[in-house]
Structures are given as structure tokens and as C-alpha cells.
């Protein structure tokens, strides 16, 4: 086979029928601020863990909304709960509590 230096990229197709509304409502009941995130990315920009791993709270919230909770959990796996993200969030979201809540709700089967 020939290596052209580029190749097929995995599909980014989303199936929103797989979105688990019950779990999302459960998460919103524990941490209502998940609804007010505007995906500005400030949390990701200052994330220490994100510098060395795939950690991104912004992307994790998007993944949950795009019916990819496993990817969201993977995104948050290396979070150290340092709290820098909560200091820069323009919406004042308690990000540490949100991260713990996401892990709690979506880790349970």
C-alpha cells in the first residue's frame, strides 16, 4: 500500500438519537450550571492537565450533548481538580463540582 502522507479520517458523524436525556437531566439537577456553559474555552485555555493530556472541560460538555459520554469521561480522566478553570469561567460555573458530577452521573451504568 502507498503512504501518501495523508489518509481517510474517522467519521465525525453524531447520532443524537443516542443522547441520554435522563442522565443529562440528572446531571443538571445536581449541577444546573451545565446549562449555562457557553463553550468559550477559557477553562481549557488555562488547564494544566490539558497541557499534557487530552483534558478539556469545554469539549467534555460538548461530547455529552453530542451523545458521546464515554469520550467525555476520557476527556476528564486526567483532571487534577486544581480549580484554575473555576477562577476564569466568565459564567462563574463551579467547574470542579461539575467535573465531579459528570464523572459520577456518567460512570454509573
Amino acid at each position, binding site marked *: *500500500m*502507498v*503512504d*501518501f*502522507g*495523508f*489518509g*481517510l*479520517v474517522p*467519521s465525525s458523524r453524531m447520532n443524537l438519537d443516542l443522547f441520554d436525556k435522563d442522565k443529562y437531566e440528572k446531571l443538571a439537577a445536581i449541577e444546573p450550571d451545565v446549562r449555562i456553559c457557553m463553550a468559550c474555552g477559557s477553562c481549557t485555555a488555562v488547564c494544566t492537565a490539558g497541557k499534557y493530556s487530552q483534558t478539556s472541560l469545554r469539549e467534555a460538555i460538548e461530547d455529552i450533548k453530542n451523545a458521546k459520554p464515554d469520550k467525555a469521561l476520557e476527556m476528564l480522566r486526567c483532571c487534577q481538580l486544581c480549580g484554575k478553570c473555576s477562577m476564569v469561567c466568565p459564567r462563574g460555573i463551579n467547574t470542579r463540582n461539575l467535573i465531579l458530577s459528570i464523572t459520577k452521573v456518567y460512570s454509573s451504568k
Partner: protein
Amino acid sequence: MIYEGKQKIWSEYQKEIPDDHYFYVRSCIRQSFFPASEATFLDITRNVLGKDIFETEHHTTCGGIAYHSDTIPQETVMTIIARQFALMAKHGYENYVCSCITSFGLYCETMETWREYPELEAKIHENLWKSCKLEFAKPKFLVHASDLIYKYRNMIAAQAVRKLVNVHTGEPLKVVEHIGCHYSKMFPSKGVGGAEYPYVLVGMIEAWGGEIVDYPERRHCCGFGFRQYFIKGNRGYSLSNTHKKFESMEPFKPDLIITNCPGCPYFLDRWQYVIAESTGKTYGQDGHGIPALTYEEVAGLVMGYDPWDLGLQTHQVGVEPLLDKMGVEYDPAKKYLGKNGKDLGSPSPCACLK
């Protein structure tokens, strides 16, 4: 169904295409990709159908490639376009026909922008005068070259020596039509059939005896998307677009793809080679690919032109299985010979794609 109501709705999807007297502008990249297509268009319209199609060597690029790659501003591209319009007016024409879909979309965008912002049009008049000492007049009718072939499709069918039919089975060839995105997705009213029911290529296929293939990703982009292709790091996205289309059309076993854009036949053709050589997958029969031709090449084939004069040897995917199905006579020994008999050189054999 209220017939009059349907007619009223459908009338919004129609486009007025004058019959004759056009100022023709070529595409930058088509002359490199499929060099005989524009020559075939001019030969059919001028010499076979007797139409007045004028072109001048003084016209330039429309600037679309630079504009869509974000390297020149819109006012610059508008001034380039204004110069083309000035050439048209200088030679006494009011109808403008362009070979390129990107150009067509850009002309539509420019004319619409001028309609919305007349002060910008005034500024472009000033820019053109300062830079070239030229005055321009907007075309009365702006059409794409495929609109014209669509308009003449029945005249071509009347003079055709063969149809899009498998001569061995008598069945119509299964044809995939692919419309360039900039034809009518940006300004639906400027294309035949609009963005929802583009009819420009379907009309040709029906008139020339083929059968349309309707498949799920029919309106998906071919994958060109300027910056996705130009930057090597993004080229996988371009390839994946094309892959998605081929995976979708494969179950319908198409015999042929017909396109009306400079980029689409190129990518639908060349990416078949890349997919085959990097993954081993081919989409035609017995390890062949699916030939992706321009509408001029298909018109030339039904009118009996020699396939090598149409430049079909410049396609990566071999066209011989299609020629055999259509009953086109060809000399394999002349495939890579130029008009003067000089050897053009043949490509290296592919490992997976026949």
C-alpha cells in the same frame, strides 16, 4: 394537487438562458486537469450548432482560487471581475458564459453584493478606472457553460451517433450526476432547478438516454473545498468527503459519473486512485474505478468524437470499460499519442486500480 400551484412553485426554479451570442471565459484549472473539455465545448457550440460564442485571450482568472483561500480581499476580486465584464462590453456582448463553477458562484456573489450595496459597485468602477482605464457594464444574462449545454441538449441528442446505453444489454447506463457546490447552493435562483432539484445535468442524461442514480449522499460535496485540499495536513478531510460519496453510491453500481465543475471530476477521479492505492478498495467492476467525466466529454462521446481527442486519457480512472459498454471504437495504441503522433508518455501502472 393544484396543478397551477405546482407550476408557480416550479417556475421559481427555472432560469432564463438566452439561445445565442455569448462572451466566453475559460477556467484556470480545467485547462490543466481536462484540457480538451473547453475545446470540445467551443467546437460543439460554434462548429456543430452554429452559435456565436466569442472569447478573447485578454481575459484572466476570476481570482476565485485566491479569494477562497483567503489571500486576496473581496474588493480586489471584484475589480478583476469588473475587468472581465469590461472586456465583454468592449466586444459588444451582453451575455456572459463561464466555464468554471467557482467563477460562476463568484460572479453571482459579486452581482448580488453590488445589488445590495450600490456604493461598493461605484467604488469598483473607480478602482477599475484607476487601475486599467476601463469602464464596465454588468452582463444582462450570466450563465454557466453547463447551462448552455443543457439548453442545447436536445439539439445534441438529435445529432448524436450513440446514446448512454449499454450496447451489449440494451439497458440505459446508470449515471451519477454531481453538481458543483458553487453552482446553486449559494444562490439557488441562479441555477436550473435551484439547490434542491438541480436539473442541469439530469436534463442532459435524460436527453442522451442514461438512467439517473439517486443515492443518499448525492448532494454531498466532492471534497475539493479549497483549503482542505491545498494544505496537506487537511487533505485527509478532502479524501474522506470523496470516500463518503463513493461508499454511498457503490451499491447502485454506477457506470459513469458526470460533473459540471472543474474540481469535482478531478477529485472524484484522482481520489479513487488514492483510495485504491492506500486501502485496496475500488468502486467499479473487476478492480476498475468509476469514470468521472465532464459534461463536455460526455456530449463529445455521444456525438461521436474520438475519445483520445476528448482527452479521456488524462483521467486517472481508465475509461475503456465505459467505452466498451457504449460501443465506442478506439485505438488503444493511440491513447498516449498527441495530435501530432508524438508520444505523451504513459503513467506508471497502479498496484490496485486497473
